[in-house]
């Protein structure tokens, strides 16, 4: 039996591409053939205009030296059959700068109402900033490994472009065995890159995942995905500020607000993962679930400096796993985490989450010693699916840390959480909470 599914799919797809002269070698700019399909290899500058919706088919690479510009108000629809995914190769740039009311939206090809997580892939930025894999370079599983797509390097200030007022939704297709695509993957991305006002929602995997790199980001919104909110790995050392994660109470798997690793084996390979995060509001499922759910799971030798975090509605606030892991948490509030507000007490012969996994490290003492509080932050409507309000009734200034004046952090945000009581940064068309 010869399954025709691939042949047919591929033939259709190929036919449409052939027509466009879409070139594999990428020597010439490739004007889209079916007018609204993005060519699979973009090797010279290309602009996606806002006057039509664009279809993203296959794994589209923006090649080194080229810039993909996306006009404000543009909608890009990812294709299911061909695993529609956008990859910005190292040395290439994306210039996707929407506005509050004319955002750039990456969404499903399906009609509204029939959209769901897993309808397409995601957006992947690859850069030349340091990662901690021996040899300093790595590949993304599921994408053909070539010299052009190897990420990592020695340029911490590398610039992959701009993502501003961008929404990425209904993605997370399985790219290869055991490898779902995150909403926004940032691998070896350098600090010259601007990531600001990006919402990822309804994806099968993590909203944001950082594989090494030094990229900084502000105003990250993660709602209703099936895995972690912010995930870091392979020596990520950037800075994040104003992060909000709202989890899907129907998600089946382990889901954490932050999940941080140094690498998959927990080695202390340098550079060590050590993000600095100020002002985050992490909202859990707020229901008793059969799986683990921590506001922050820090493990496998990562380091982290975390300030002004609100964590509520999880199973437990934090688990610091593996003896080599170390983190700093200050100016933060844990409240309403259902099983253990701060952390499970772990013993060697404990069962399940109560089994020691860090050579006796005492998370509760660590939490208290950091000057963190267990008080009700009085958030307005953090668990509302379609009209949430993550702001506190009163700005949480008590005990808050002041972000350092380093050119990135907003130093005025000396409050706990991602919002002050009258913040409006979630307003505008760039944000959506509508399911399907």
């Amino acid at each position, binding site marked *: 039996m010869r399954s025709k599914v691939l042949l047919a*799919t591929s033939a259709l797809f190929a036919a449409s591409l052939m027509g466009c002269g879409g070139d594999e070698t990428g020597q010439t700019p490739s004007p889209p053939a079916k007018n609204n399909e993005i060519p699979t290899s973009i090797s010279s500058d290309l602009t996606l205009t806002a006057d039509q919706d664009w279809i993203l088919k296959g794994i589209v690479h923006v090649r080194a030296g080229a810039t993909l510009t996306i006009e404000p108000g543009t909608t890009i629809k990812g294709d299911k059959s061909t695993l529609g995914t956008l990859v910005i190769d190292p040395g290439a740039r994306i210039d996707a700068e929407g506005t509050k009311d004319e955002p750039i939206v990456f969404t499903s090809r399906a009609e509204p109402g029939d959209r769901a997580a897993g309808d397409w892939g995601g957006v992947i930025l690859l850069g030349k900033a340091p990662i901690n894999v021996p040899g300093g370079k790595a590949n993304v599983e599921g994408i053909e490994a070539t010299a052009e797509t190897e990420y990592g390097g020695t340029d911490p200030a590398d610039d992959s472009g701009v993502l501003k007022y961008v929404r990425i939704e209904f993605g997370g297709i399985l790219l290869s065995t055991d490898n779902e695509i995150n909403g926004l993957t940032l691998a070896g991305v350098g600090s010259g890159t601007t990531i600001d006002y990006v919402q990822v929602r309804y994806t099968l995997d993590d909203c944001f995942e950082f594989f090494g790199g030094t990229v900084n980001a502000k105003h990250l919104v993660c709602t209703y995905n099936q895995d972690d909110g912010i995930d870091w790995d392979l020596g990520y050392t950037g800075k994040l500020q104003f992060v909000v994660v709202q989890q899907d109470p129907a998600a089946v798997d382990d889901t954490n607000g932050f999940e941080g690793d140094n690498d998959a084996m927990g080695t202390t390979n340098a550079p060590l993962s050590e993000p600095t995060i100020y002002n985050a509001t992490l909202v859990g499922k707020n229901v008793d679930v059969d*799986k683990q759910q921590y506001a922050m799971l820090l493990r496998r030798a990562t380091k982290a400096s975390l300030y002004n975090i609100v964590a509520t509605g999880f199973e437990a606030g934090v688990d610091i796993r593996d003896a080599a892991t170390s983190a700093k948490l200050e100016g933060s509030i844990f409240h309403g985490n259902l099983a253990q507000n701060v952390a499970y007490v772990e013993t060697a012969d404990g069962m399940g989450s109560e089994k020691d996994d860090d050579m006796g490290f005492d998370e509760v003492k660590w939490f208290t010693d950091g000057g963190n509080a267990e008080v009700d932050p009085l958030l307005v409507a953090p668990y509302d699916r379609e009209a949430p309000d993550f702001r506190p009734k009163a700005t949480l200034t008590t005990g808050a840390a002041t972000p350092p004046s380093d050119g990135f952090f907003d130093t005025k945000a000396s409050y706990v959480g991602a919002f002050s009581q009258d913040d409006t940064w979630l307003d505008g068309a760039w944000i959506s909470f509508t399911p399907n």
Partner: protein
Amino acid sequence: MRKTIVTLASALTLSLPALALAQEGADEALLGEEDPSRPAPAGKGVVWGVVTDAKTKEPVIDAQVSVVGTNKKVIADFDGRFRLELPPGNYELRVFYQLYKAQRLQNVRVTAGTVEKLDVALSTEEAKQEIVVEIEADPDRASAAAQTLLRKNAAHTGDAVSAQEIARTPDRNAADAARRVVGASVVGQRYVYVRGLGDRYTNALLNGVPLPSPEPDRQAVPFDLFPTTVLSDLTIIKTFTPDMPGDFTGGSVRVTTRELPEKFTISGTLYLGVNTETTFRDRLTYAGGGTDFLGIDDGTRALPPNFPTDYKAAKGAEKPDGSLVSSREVNELGRALNKPMTTTRTMTLPNMSGNLTLGNTHRFGQDHELGYMAALTYGRRFQIRREGVLGTVTIDPNVSNELESQNYYSFENGVDVVSWGGFAGLTYRYAKDHKVTLLGLHSRSSESEAREIAGHAEEGGAGRLAYDTRLRFASRSLTFGQLAGEHKLRNANDATLEWNLTTSLATSDEPGTRQNVYLQDNDRKAWQSTTLSGLHFYANQAETAIGGALHYTQPIRRGDTPVRVKVGGLAQVRDRAFDARRLRYIPIAQTPEEAAAYSLPPDQLFTSEYIGRALTLDEYTRPSDSYDATQRTFAGYFMTDASLRPWMRVVLGARVEASSQRLDTFDSSTGLPRQVDLSTTDLLPSLGLVFKTSDRSNLRASVTRTVARPQLRELAPFSFTDYFGAREMQGNPDLDRTTIVNADLRFEFFPTLAEVAAISVFYKDFSKPIEQIIIPSNRGIVSYQNAKGAQNAGIELELRKNLGFVSPAIADLGVLANLTLVHSRVALDDEGTSVQTNNVRPLAGQSPYVVNAGLDYANDKRGTRVRVLYNIYGRRISQVGSLGLPDVYEQPRHLLDVTVAQRIGKYVDLKLSAENILLAPVVFTQGPNVENVFHQDIPNLTNVVEQFQPGATFTLSATITN
């Protein structure tokens, strides 16, 4: 005891040049079961007798009895008996056999109507030998003595195990039997490694023809597809001569099907076996189909009838008409596809199998013979692995070299193995000069497996348990058809022409493998939607091969310094098509109430009720999950086989092999058609020298060049996953083929035809060997590289000796032993291999030593045979380590097998065999011992990453032969 008939044949044995020496019009005597002392035909008299060894009194098999001054000649049978029918007169007889001093019997008087007995005792005492008459027999290859003879006279270095030998072991198929050959080891109970070199360096030939492979991920032929019933012998040739395909370095594994019988033969065997780990225990299983017992799925596991084949079964997938699949449609597909995800248990019956062999040869007139042979075999056996261990370790090379346990699971599985085959051969022979054979073979084996894994997954935290269930059915088959001919051209100085046309088909089918994962936290157990959960996987592959070969041998000079030249060629085209589909159920619950379904056990969750509410079907088949590939090989050769002196023979020649490999698939990124080509033409010279150091010994030396080509998928420049659960792999379109220079030296000594002592040394220098590497990524991608170089050096010792020399009291005892030692080093290119732990290491799969030792007792009078066999191989790399982790090694196993056979009466043979009676476990380890940090509940945790106990198997069989 069944008599084995040895015929003189004018047809030449083509793959064994030394035997293919022409001889002037010899007659033939067929003894068979007929009494050699039977009355003489009209007008003639009879001389008959028994040829024995003067010292041991054993019959001398294959002794030649010739009538001096005529071309009349007969060969003694397995009881040493001969019979000559002669017109009245006075004759001189000459009785000769290799290694013995020839005897002349003068003044033998024959009168019409008389039958005279004349026994001959041949002596091995040193004496000036008479002129050596070349043996020109086409003996039944199935006997051990025949194999020794073939080997002694062969142009190449090789080792064989005959059907007769196999009968003395518990071996059921060719893979089992290969384990007995010097320097061979069997991996995964299926693939043969020679001198420790992997399947890349081994080729497989059936009756001289390269076989296609049913394996998606390798070019290897699974030798368990050949039941021993259809085998005449299994030979592993270790040095290349130009008349054979040059794509081997370790060995060329040649399976030869049975020769035709000379008389009506019918034989049947029934086997009954028990395994200490399996039989009468409860076995994990699952609902299969009605034809599982035939090794074929009846459609139970197949995709539902109206399942889309021209678009993906996933919401949002584009249909050919441009519309998108809706949620409603995909939920219907999901309900139709849904099958049980759970295992059940059943009591395990003993293993049972049987076979039937039938054959005869009919003679028509003076010159025509038509013979046939057919065999059927069927077997079903079960396997349970209980309390198996699986694990992974981690290391932080910055801190210490100590490993820590990461994941730790116990596993249990139950496997139902079905294997059956049919073989039929038809041979027409005309006047001893022409032989045409048509044969067909079909062989199939299937494994239906239910597996449960439970344990600690680091990903989920120290205290939680993961449960993984997998249900799998895989079926492989091989179909082979061959028309072959052998012709002696008397007008051309007895040149011989051999040809064959072959077509074959190898398939593998894996319909509907299912895998599912649950996680347990304290007492709460719930479905996990990891990417390896809720899965349905389908794959099938078919590889066809058609081809032909031609060999022409021209004798140039005869006598004691014969010279022959041989030319020939081979053409073969193989086409492969591979398809896989990957489907899985993904969660879609919108509310915590709907999500509560995930806490239901699988038989309640995977139901029509929840598909569409909590679960939906998704398909993630990739463009590269389908490919077609073609491999064309064209070869031509010329060689001379010349005895420059009676004691010195030179085999010199060269083969040109042109190969083109082409793979057609679709680019994973773009979906565009993508094609990879590798075309190479290689000149493969070969020089072999055979020195007859005495009549009983040879010294052989050879230098040859051989080639190893990349496997088709290794050239593919895209990511793929070869089989279910495999690691992500990516081929390398820049791979080149490997060339190898082989140097071999062997001294062999044959005290008698039943005894051998040999020592060999070999050295192999690999240029651009293809080795697996790990490309850095989050988890590591497997790829391939032409390494800079590799060297293997080794020594082989072999001994097969009767113990009668110690004391006549133990003359029925014999020892057999062989030993292979190999030193292997490969140096990888540092470029692109930054995450590999060891860039200089032994070749993967290479054992530093392989030992076989055995004790034989054979008393033909009582009909009793006993064999005790011991086998061990040195630890070998099964998986290359990365990111500071050591390489994974498969540890040695002390395998002890015993077989006792007893003939009862004239027709029945009983055999009891015991395998693995030392209960050697299968153990894979990684690096030095691991300190038990988190798993205090599992004592004695060491560096074991996989372990299980296959148990001992006891099999009783009864063979009835006419």
